């Protein structure tokens, strides 16, 4: 009897390990919650890339919108780009790009090559707004409601899965 018990020790340890790995896999996240969620979007004033306007945070009030931080220098943005394009095409949400620390010429070339899905593109050459938004790496995406409050934030590449499971339900909730 004792021998049989000893023989099951390795299996028991291993089962514990598997449980740990499984729990970790389903709960693990690299995500750090943004302290900005629930706060108003920081004040900004930026020139736009194509429409030759200067827009501020107040210009977007009245309907929910998505702010997508990108740069032509950022390879992950290129990965995410088709997904953003698809999102802009198939939903009603206003998609605004924040062109972060980018030479306008580079951004222009990049958008010509990969397509421009944005309703407006704000040029944040110095990166001030990105700092106020607590951006620590492109791409990042913020969902802002009609009153100008940040309701949701995604760090890293947007995927269809994130959009379907998290972003769209959230948009549904804040849409009038």
């Amino acid at each position, binding site marked *: 009897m004792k021998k049989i018990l000893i*023989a099951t020790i390795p299996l028991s340890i291993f089962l514990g390990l598997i449980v740990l790995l499984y729990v970790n896999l389903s709960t693990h996240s690299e995500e750090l919650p943004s302290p900005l969620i629930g706060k108003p979007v920081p004040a900004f004033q930026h020139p736009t890339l194509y429409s030759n306007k200067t827009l501020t945070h107040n210009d977007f009030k009245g309907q929910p919108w998505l702010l997508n931080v990108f740069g032509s*220098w950022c390879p992950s943005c290129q990965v995410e780009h088709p997904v953003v394009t698809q999102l802009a095409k198939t939903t009603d949400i206003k998609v605004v790009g924040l062109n972060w620390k980018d030479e306008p010429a580079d951004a222009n070339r990049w958008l010509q090559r990969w397509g421009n899905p944005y309703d407006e593109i704000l040029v944040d050459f110095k990166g001030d707004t990105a700092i106020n938004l607590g951006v620590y790496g492109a791409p990042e995406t913020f969902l802002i409601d009609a009153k100008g409050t940040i309701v949701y934030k995604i760090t890293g590449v947007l995927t269809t899965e994130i959009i379907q499971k998290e972003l769209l339900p959230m948009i549904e909730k804040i849409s009038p």
Partner: protein
Amino acid sequence: MLASIGQFLLILSLVTAAVLTVLPITGYFKNHKGLMRTGRPLSYLLFVLTLATFLILVFLFVIQDFSVTYVWQHSSLTLPLRYRITATWGAHEGSVLMWVTIQALWIAAVARYSRSLSLSQISRVLSVLGIVATGFLAFVLFASNPFEITNPAPLDGRDLNPLLQDFGMIIHPPLLYFGYVGLSVAFALSVAALIGGQIDEKWIRWSRRWTNLAWAFLTIGIILGSWWAYYELGWGGWWFWDPVENASFLPWLAGTALIHVQAVSERKNAFRGWTVLLAIIAFSLCVLGTFLVRSGSITSVHSFAADPFRGIFILVLLALYAGGALTLYALRVNQLKSTDTINLNSKETLLLANSLIFITATFTILLGTLFPMIFEAVGKKISVGAPYFGLMFFLIMTPMAVLLPLGVQLKWHKDAMTPAIKTLLPHLLIAALLTIASYYLFDGLNLRATAGVFGGFWIASTALAQWILYKGKTNASFIGMSVAHLGVAVFLFSMSMTEHKDVEKDILMKPGQTSEVAGFNFTFNGVTAVQIENYKAQQGSILVSKAGEPIVELHPQKRFYPKQQQPMTEADIYPGLTKDIYVSLGEEINKQGDWAVRIYIKPFIRWMWFGGLMMLAGALIALFNLRSKRLEQQQINTVMKDQLELS
């Protein structure tokens, strides 16, 4: 088109592996010779199919077929041919395919070089290897398919990660995979033995050589990884206790325990269950390592794209393989009776102690690697760093270094402890004297360095003496062991020196400025821009001299790869017998051309890898052991005779 053929071959490989899993073992249970005999041809077929699949992927890279997603993601028009070929295994999908191909190569080799095994044994072994291959092939096909198509195809690719555009990275992963996968042979033997409920010396002797070979590959794989990190990552370290490094180190430690225990269990009927268990643990750690690296469960500098589905898939494989094997172990191990008694004063006892020490080390490092996960499960984020691993490893390995010479000295079966210790005592004195000499020669050593240096001399002195003493004993097994143990000594000494006597200086240098570090003068002659192949670089020029005599001019680079938008620090190293001079560029400080320059003096660092190479050489030499060759030939003859009589 070609990609579709690759896809098709991949599916065929999976089917073949599945058939290999089922047929021979069914033959074993039904005692059907014909079914058991399918094992060998199926193994060869599996290898041909996976190799063809892999070569097609290589070819897709060579011809730059950007319609294949995996190709455009990791190659580009400007990538030189040699890196296009190696880009095949530069990322997840291709590297798993390579893993499977190497697995199939091992299976084919096992099928070919197993004439000493009876048909019922080899059919079980091949079926178990078949199930391992099936799992990983399914993983490639369903969770990491390298033949996925992008439509329309991009005009240019995203280029290969610059860190991987390097010789060390080209050969490091394949060698490591050879090691990982090689351990699956010992695993398959264990499971096959548990299925049958019996194991004998011949079987262990056969598997021991495969384990040795796998261990040799793991060793060289780890050495190359360490060497690569040293010259490529630009911060002068050689081991970081990073989870991914640990993932390769854990099977190595368990494998070390295994090869030492096999030395006993191939000679006498002892430690049978322990041998079987260690083999299961060693291979399970390979799969666990793969899980940790590929699932993104653990934050590491080696960033493979994290994908939870892949994580779940490998977790299921791990549960299946290790869980299945350990369940069998629980049910059957008591049938593998070890009948021989072990005398306390014998080599056997010391080898058992060795395996216990190494397995303790394995689990300590595993625990350290998993700690962040355990804490995350209760909602906290922590990281376990090098200080924990360094200290724990030091404490656990100290008894290993102390006991190693005694284990070699003691005879098999039965010996007396006191005379053995008396024989070794003079070496304690020699080692102490040499350590004191080193202490003064290198201007003082701290506690851990002193202990390490002492351990090195203690092992080296005894190993050399034992070699001379047993001059008549020229069998490969003894020579291999001595060489490997001398490697341990060389490693201990040089690692202690590198870790504790290195000099690191970050200096702000103006063009023309000379700074003195550890007796050398470094003159900074500014930075110029250069353009090479697919990158641009700012190249520094630093003249190293001593007492007015120029030694070498070093050219560290700050590279920029436009396609990946990634800067890279390329250090330049002046390798030396007793020290490396290592220079890398930090940041440009201002427009006047002032740079932050990092200068390291790394004593004996080459010796460390050389020690590793000696361990590798030892394992390889031991393969030529005449005793086991002779015994194997006898066994082959018996098997052949049985077959003749039967037919």
